[in-house]
């Protein structure tokens, strides 16, 4: 659809059939691209780095250990301001080794300088990739499209594939202004010292800030052309009059919205907010959507060990800065593929999970009787 000219990847569960299918498209001549099965994820990321620097739209996909193996190159791609697009098929990070889904992998590279968009459905994955190239190329930033491993990557659901003409109309062909080209020789990636290094970082930060309205605008434009919006930065659900807001990222929000429906039917003033764009962290939009809430529960599938919930901590900082002192209940769950069932989510709503003084978060219960379930059992489960 997006017509990448170079696809480089190293196989890792649960990303494999994304790249297997692309290899087949290339083999069948449906996609005119160089397909490169690299010698490692580190190599794959480096190959797309080189390809984009040479002016070719490129694609890679990975997960988990593979994403961490790429880490050095991820920072480098962002620092070189190369518009690379990749899919992270979100998976837990070992040890213990675990192939199932959580967000630890992409959250661990949140500071690398990549835009991060977390999708809820396979349709959104398709649509977001198309938007991702447009965002990357317009902002000069790499974009990571994060989709839950297995929950999305291995789930079949009907997807409306737009026509090539529609995609071409939305996504102009790739014209890179800093291409490696002997007719306009340029030095990319030279050394920098204390007298200008910080300016490079400041430029990345401001490009990231500028990306937020661009992400919103492209989603709106996408909606006009394709008839589907995914919310841009945030996707609110039943927020009107909601006193309690459940906030999370990715595919778990489907179950959250079901719970919201059920609770609304019971007359509870509850809504949900899906954080689609984690980087740039949409401070302004979050404050606008959450300013009226009396209770906020953040449910997230990654942990900063030694600190707690990452989204919750950033949200607290954002609200605090805006003078909003609504308590943010931080819950971590769904790690390593554990189910976050509607029952569990409902329990979070029913039982106050206000973190006691001295703690900043708690783990999600793995069944509804939270009070009876002690933390030790959760850990060992």
């Amino acid at each position, binding site marked *: 659809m997006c017509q990448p000219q170079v696809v480089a990847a190293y196989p890792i569960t649960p990303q494999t059939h994304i790249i297997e299918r692309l290899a087949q498209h290339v083999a069948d001549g449906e996609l005119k691209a160089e397909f490169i099965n690299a010698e490692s994820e580190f190599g794959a990321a*480096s190959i797309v780095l080189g*390809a984009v620097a*040479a002016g070719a739209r490129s694609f890679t996909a990975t997960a988990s250990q593979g994403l961490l193996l790429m880490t050095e190159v991820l920072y480098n791609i962002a620092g070189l301001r190369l518009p690379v697009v990749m899919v992270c098929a979100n998976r837990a990070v070992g040890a213990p080794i675990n192939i199932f889904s959580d967000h630890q992998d992409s959250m661990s590279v949140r500071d690398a300088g990549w835009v991060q968009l977390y999708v809820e459905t396979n349709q959104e994955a398709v649509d977001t990739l198309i938007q991702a190239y447009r965002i990357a190329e317009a902002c000069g930033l790499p974009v990571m499209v994060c989709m839950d491993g297995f929950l999305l990557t291995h789930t079949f659901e009907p997807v409306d594939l737009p026509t090539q003409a529609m995609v071409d109309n939305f996504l102009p062909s790739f014209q890179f202004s800093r291409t490696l080209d002997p007719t306009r020789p340029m030095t990319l990636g030279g050394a920098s010292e204390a007298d200008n290094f910080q300016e490079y970082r400041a430029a990345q930060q401001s490009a990231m800030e500028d990306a937020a309205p661009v992400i919103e605008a492209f989603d709106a434009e996408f909606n006009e052309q394709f008839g589907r919006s995914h919310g841009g930065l945030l996707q609110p659900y039943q927020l009107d009059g909601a006193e309690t807001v459940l906030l999370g990222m990715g595919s778990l929000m489907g179950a959250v919205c079901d719970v919201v429906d059920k609770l609304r039917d019971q007359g509870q003033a509850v809504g949900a907010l899906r954080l689609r764009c984690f980087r740039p962290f949409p401070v302004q939009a979050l404050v606008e959507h959450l300013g009226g809430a009396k209770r906020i529960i953040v449910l997230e599938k990654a942990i900063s060990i030694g600190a707690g919930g990452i989204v919750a901590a950033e949200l607290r900082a954002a609200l605090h800065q805006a003078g909003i002192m609504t308590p943010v209940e931080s819950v971590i769950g769904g790690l390593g593929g554990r189910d976050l069932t509607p029952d569990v989510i409902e329990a979070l709503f029913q039982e106050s999970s206000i973190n006691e003084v001295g703690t900043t978060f708690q783990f999600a219960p793995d069944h509804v009787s939270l009070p009876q379930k002690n933390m030790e059992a959760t850990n060992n489960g």
Partner: protein
Amino acid sequence: MDNRDSFRHNVLTSGHRACSGCGEAMAARMVSDLIGPDAIYINATGCLQVFTTHNQQSAWQAPWIHSVFANAAAVASGVEAALRIKGKSTPVVVQAGDGGTFDIGLQCLSGMIERGHDVLFVCYDNEAYMNTGVQRSGSTPHAVRTSTSPPGQFSQGKKEIKKDVISIIAAHNMPYAATATIAYFPDLKAKVEKAMRIKGPRFLQILSPCPLGWVHDSALSVSVARLAVETGLFPLVELEHGELTGVMRLAEQKPVEEYLRPQGRFKHLFANKAGAVELRHLQALADARIHRYGLLDADTQWDTETAMQSERNGRGGYWEEREHG
């Protein structure tokens, strides 16, 4: 205007920040001038990258990119793939030191060769991590003093022998792999030109003395490189698809001592008996290479069987100590 250099491409201009007498700077100037500005250069992290692109200044008059230390060959793979799909034939050249080739960069290099990318990979081999202050690498020869292989009561410098990287590269069914030095420019020129005529992955290992790390007079860089060849320690060879297709033969062999004496990195070997043992090992290693590549008509004056055993052992002759208890 200064026109002294106007006959050259000056892909790598003067005014960069290399140490005086830097073999790598000389080698890079020769290579990039032979290839010219109509190419894309990918550099691994290292001295060459640092001294040519300092703080928003660049000594390169060709498109040049540096990403990280280990990935130059993979970046080049991506650049080459992009050019191929766009139907362009701009040559792609990687430049890396021995760290970026023998050690941290070997995996990406192996992948690049195995996938058959049309890239020339040039290793400027100065036999240690010079940019970080002269630590041992897989390329550091036996018995060399580096800051992480220091001589001491229980050490005569680096225990292990230099990694035979050219054989590793050639074993990839490599279209072209060759060694060269800054001391024999016509040989280097012929090899660069030959490499540029061949399609597919190509590899050049260029011995590039480093006055700072080798601790020799900076005026001696070229003669030290020449002695490395004349003693047999650094054979000049060409391998095509794994087969040896060319060697620079020696009229006569010089004793390794002539090569070792001017270099402070071997100074400890001349201080005591233990050092003298290592001198014999180094001589044996030179003999083994002469024998292996047939650099001389006759066998060397030193015992070749001992020499071969010394190399086979892979530890620069430490077998001898073990045998003697």
